[in-house]
Every structure is written in structure tokens, then in C-alpha cells.
């Protein structure tokens, strides 16, 4: 690995199967640009996101984690994203309290039709995380190359 290669953040995006994953698909088929360092993980619903998943992502080298789900009111399972909204609010606040910058975690509601929003969201998130720099706080030293 070249030493002077510019650092780019690793982003893990957890996407709800019903809306945001399709939104990401649309962004792709519409040839909208968003950075290649966003790794998408599909989950059945935004409320499937176990806090352990987020921490594991950080452990294995993610610099930012974003959750994308259906807009409130549009959940395929009626209410999943309402629960997710509360859970993530509390979790992200706790992570911030422990010193993990607020900008590294985010929740966005992206519908299947919002390919452009997906791309814009990712561009913006990558920009925020790039400014924050490398995640040195929640990473696992053993996983560093």
C-alpha cells in the first residue's frame, strides 16, 4: 500500500430492504455519482439494526455508519422505523457522550423513488466523515493492517 495515497473514509450504510436499498439501486441505475467507499448492507427493516452491528462496523474499520430506512409512516411493517428512530436517537447520543463524534453516525429516510436523495445523502455523509478524519476511537487495533 502506498503511504501517500490519500485517505478516504470507509462508510457502512445499512439500508432497509423495502425503500432505501431500492433507492440505492435507483441511484445506481440512474448513474448518479456517490463515492465508492460506501458499503451497503441490506437489512429487512431499519429496526433490525442491532446496535452491535454498528459497533462491529466501527471495530472492523468503518469511519462512519449510516442507517437508511423508509420514511416515517411508510414502513413495510407499519411501525418498524418509528422504533428505530427512538433507538438510534438514544444510541447515537450515547456514542456521542462516550466521545464518538456525532457526525460519524446518521439516520436518513430514503424511499425507493429517491435515488437522487440517496446519492446526495451519501455524498454529504462522506464529506462530513472525511472532515472528521479517521475513526481511531472505536476501531480494534488488532484489525489494523
Amino acid at each position: 500500500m502506498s503511504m501517500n495515497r490519500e485517505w478516504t473514509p470507509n462508510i457502512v450504510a445499512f439500508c432497509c430492504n423495502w425503500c432505501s436499498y431500492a433507492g440505492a439501486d435507483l441511484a445506481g441505475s440512474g448513474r448518479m455519482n456517490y463515492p465508492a467507499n460506501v458499503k451497503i448492507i441490506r437489512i429487512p427493516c431499519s429496526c433490525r439494526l442491532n446496535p452491535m452491528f454498528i459497533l462491529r462496523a466501527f471495530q472492523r474499520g468503518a469511519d462512519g455508519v449510516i442507517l437508511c430506512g423508509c420514511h416515517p409512516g411508510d414502513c413495510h411493517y407499519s411501525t418498524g422505523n418509528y422504533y428505530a428512530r427512538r433507538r438510534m436517537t438514544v444510541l447515537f447520543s450515547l456514542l456521542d457522550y462516550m466521545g464518538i463524534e456525532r457526525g460519524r453516525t446518521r439516520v436518513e429516510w430514503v424511499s425507493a423513488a429517491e435515488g437522487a436523495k440517496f446519492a446526495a445523502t451519501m455524498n454529504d455523509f462522506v464529506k462530513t466523515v472525511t472532515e472528521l478524519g479517521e475513526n481511531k476511537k472505536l476501531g480494534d487495533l488488532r484489525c489494523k493492517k
Partner: protein
Amino acid sequence: MIVNRLQELLQDDENLQFVGWEKGETPFDRTPKTFTAETLGNLCYDSFCGSNLSKYLLSQKTDKKTVVLLKPCDSYSFNQLCTERRLNRDAYHVIGVGCKGKIDGEKIRKTGIKGILSVREEGETLKIETLYGTTEIPRKDVLLDKCLACKGKEHKCADEVLGESEDTCVGDKYETVAKLEAMTPDERFAFWREELSKCIRCNACRNACPACSCIKCVFDNPNSGVQNKAAADDFEENLFHIIRAYHVAGRCTDCGECSRVCPQGIPLHLLNRKIIRDVNEFYGDYQAGDAIGQRHPLTDFTFEDSEPNAERKGGGK
């Protein structure tokens, strides 16, 4: 006085069992115990009975009607466990016992008093006899941390109340939380790193916690990839404590057992208290264990809930 009342109860039903504390070897040893009619004489309740008996009830057989002694703060945990259907309210006769704050043996030792043979309460003073002579210390200086954040003298669940209680709360219990919130992320991180790096992974905080009542914890599942007994990396320590605190979000009654039992004195309650403060702020005031059957904020929602991304300094106001 308490034992007399328990003896009376025995006259109505000689099959009762009693859950209380027993005196141990050192002046501070108070072991949770289940007593029968024969052993009831050993039951003891005094200023050193700081441990919360609610969690202890989970490990006891309930083939007999159980009389349990609960301090005001313990009654919250009892309610919460009843709410979660881990305890059956009808199986217990709850005696609310008066509490004027419990004494922390560790704090006495930390003041440098060594070789403690006995501790006597005289009003607001503790007379301490040691191997190296006698000494005194004000009672209020060595109360358990959880008593300094007392939730009040009211028993939230009791069939009868014996003795007087006192609210021992000093100042604002969110003071330290607010102080941390005012720091920069890097300072906060440094604070928690220093504290959590002391963790020896004994799991006492989890095992003592009345809200941690899962029969099998995710940290005991080798297939979860969690190194539950090895602080093999800083990350593992952070992971454990974040998940531990977050898993009891909305259910934590702020009973303070986690910090009391920590052998390394990590202020774990500061994590839980942060969550309680957030939940109160975002979703309205809520006290877990206030009453049996409450629905806690994280298993509930409204259509108008705030968005997670809102910028909050230190995750707070």
C-alpha cells in the same frame, strides 16, 4: 423490630420464607440470604445493607410465599422485574424497610482507615474501632454513591412499610452527566477510556443489575464473537459497556448496583444516567419501575418523535 414483625407473619403462615440480609465476617459484609422460620434470627437490616435484593429474588425458588425486604430504591427494580414478568407480584409479600442512606465500606477504607474491626453509628457520626485505635467519620461522607442520587423515601411497591426513610439526595444527580456533556468529544473519550480501561471483565455489573435479567446474555454466547472475559482490546471494553448500558435503556431504574459492585470503581451509572436523561428529555419524564405494567419509552413511539440527527452538544441539550 423487623424480625418481630416477621415472626408475627410466621404465626399466620409457618411456611413463609424470608429474603433479607445476613451479617458476615467483616463489619461491612451483608450477604443476601433466604431465611426460614428456623434461621430467621440471623436476618439483619442495618445501614450496611446496600445491596439490592430484587435481582436476588430471580435466583430463588418460589414454591413458598416469600416475604422480601425492599428499600425504597429496591422497590423500583422489583416493580420493573414484575413489569417484565420476571417476578410474579403475587408470590411476594413486600415489606418496605426504612432507609436513611447506606454506608459504603469501600469509601471508609479509601479514606485511609485501616484494620476496621467494628463500626458503630451514633447519630450522624460513625465510631470506628480499628486494629490501630478508634476513629470517627461523619456518616454522610461515606454514603454509597447511589444514595447521593436517592430517588426519594417513598416505597413504590410495598404491602407494608416498617421504619422511617430519608431522602439522601445531594444536589443534582445529573451534574456529572452535564459536566461530561460540556466537554469536547476528545475529552469525553479520554475520560471514558481512562475509566473503562480499568475494567477487569468480571461481569459483576451485568450480573448484579436487576435490569440485566436475560437468561442467556449475548456476551455469554461464544458464537456471537464476543470475547466476554477478555479485555483483549480497547474496543472490546467499549463494546461491552455500550451494549450493557444500552440494553437496559428505558428499563434501568438508576439503582446504582453497577457502580456499587464494580471492583475497579468505574462510574458505570454515568452511562445509564445519560440515557435516562436523554429519554426524559426526548420523550417526556419517565421513571422505570415507578409502577408495575408501565410501557417504557423505547418500546413505544409517537408520530412526532424528534429526528436522530438533530445536533446536540455532547448528545444532550
